[in-house]
């Protein structure tokens, strides 16, 4: 499993905890539209990811994210910047 796959897997684990096991979760899933999560739940989800990856995700980066693939990519970039 490469780094990108590991990031996606971790994102999916956290998301299932919030959106439910039955939620259809893939790279093209739109975070605000497809999951039935309100903006508060999404913010808590972002906090989970920050803890999990030990990175801070600035708000302006979140604003650019639409799909889970976008999110995974943003996290990878932030991980590289932090390294």
């Amino acid at each position: 499993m490469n780094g990108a796959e590991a990031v996606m897997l971790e994102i999916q684990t956290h998301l299932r905890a919030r959106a439910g096991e039955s939620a259809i979760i893939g790279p093209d899933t739109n975070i605000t539209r497809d999951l039935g999560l309100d903006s508060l739940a999404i913010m808590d989800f972002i906090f989970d990811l920050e803890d999990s990856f030990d990175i801070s995700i600035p708000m302006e980066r979140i604003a650019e994210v639409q799909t889970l693939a976008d999110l995974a990519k943003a996290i990878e970039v932030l991980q590289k910047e932090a390294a």
Partner: protein
Amino acid sequence: MSSIFDKFAPLQEQHASLTALGRSPADIEFQEIISPTEATLNGKRTILMGTNNYLGLTFDDEAVEAAIESLRTEGTGTTGSRIANGSYDGHKELEKELAEFYGMRSAILFSTGYQANLGAIAALAGRDDYLLIDADSHASIYDACRLSDAQVIRFRHNDPQNLARKLERLEGTSGSKLIVVESIYSMLGDMAPLKEFIEIKKKYGAYLLIDEAHSLGVMGEKGRGLCEQTGLEDDVDFITGTFSKSIGTVGGFLVSNLPGLDIVRFVSRPYMFTASPPPSVVASARKTLSKIAGATDLRKKLWDNAGQLYNGLKAAGFELGPTLSPIVAIRLSDSEKAIALWNGLLDAGIYTNLALPPATPFGWYLLRSSISAAHTPEQIALAVDVCSTIGRELGLIAVSNRKNAEEMQVNGAKTLNGASEKRPFSTSEPESAVPTRAGAPVARA
């Protein structure tokens, strides 16, 4: 054909469904303002319990006279910004008085409290800097972040450890770090753990700005707010505040003891590109501000009143915010019952605020009230009584709490007058949440 307003359809629906259930909070209209605590609403005499008029000074005779005198001598408005069109004496005097009041080097006046946060934060944190904001921040703080060129990092509400972790990750970066917190949070009335935040700020060499909007005149021996009450004024770099709550008019300010603050006037767009406060507003703000330090009796009355409402509602069985403060919020999870309670109170002549997700923590529906020193124990007892009756009818509280609440009503004023009533100024409220631009921008009242 599509309309530019189509995108607001979900919002329109929410507004329409509120109206269908009685009224929409946005449609509330007061005809006659009888006093700081009473107005007529659709002809009905109504007790105002959601107006942030903490000290009840909106009808202070001297403040009213000062405004009238200023209107006659200086006119109705300045018709321009201070940078482009000059300052009036009153602007300069009020800034001097604010700096003196806080015992700090300088103060800058803004036209509203919203603009004070917007203008201060966006100017102080520029490109290459970092803004670290509490997740439960007021809309003015979130909007300041959008106006600023700084990177914006949120930390969990009132969670110093989460803030520390985020500052730790920034070690080695060159930009300034500005932490932004509020003294009393406007929705639940909970307070920032200031001591812990200051320890972290010092450890990581960050700056701290605190918005004392809801605590000016309310906390501290001389009414300077949470920083004064906790004895931490020397450790706070910037304070913002508003005249639209305890000061009873409109306007905002930034104060600081750091040398060089005045440069903010030349970089803060919300300061530069808006009309300066009208002279009559400045005159009444000056008069009222001059009374804040000495308003010890009003502060005591305010906290006694807050205790009567908070403890009365608690005894009745309602779930409230974590801390006793002049903001008393009933937490509800059922939207229809929350709306019914709010409407029921209005029908009985009691005005409170209805706050809906996503502007509320944890997605709660909040019936929010702000108490005033001008409320009478009878008005508060009536509010508790009506609230409890409707709450029982709606099944929000158990019938068995009735006796408990009635005893509290009888004993309330007496027991709460004692010094034993502790006023906590920090809370260990668990993390909370506010929407992000990934969803909708935050809008805290």
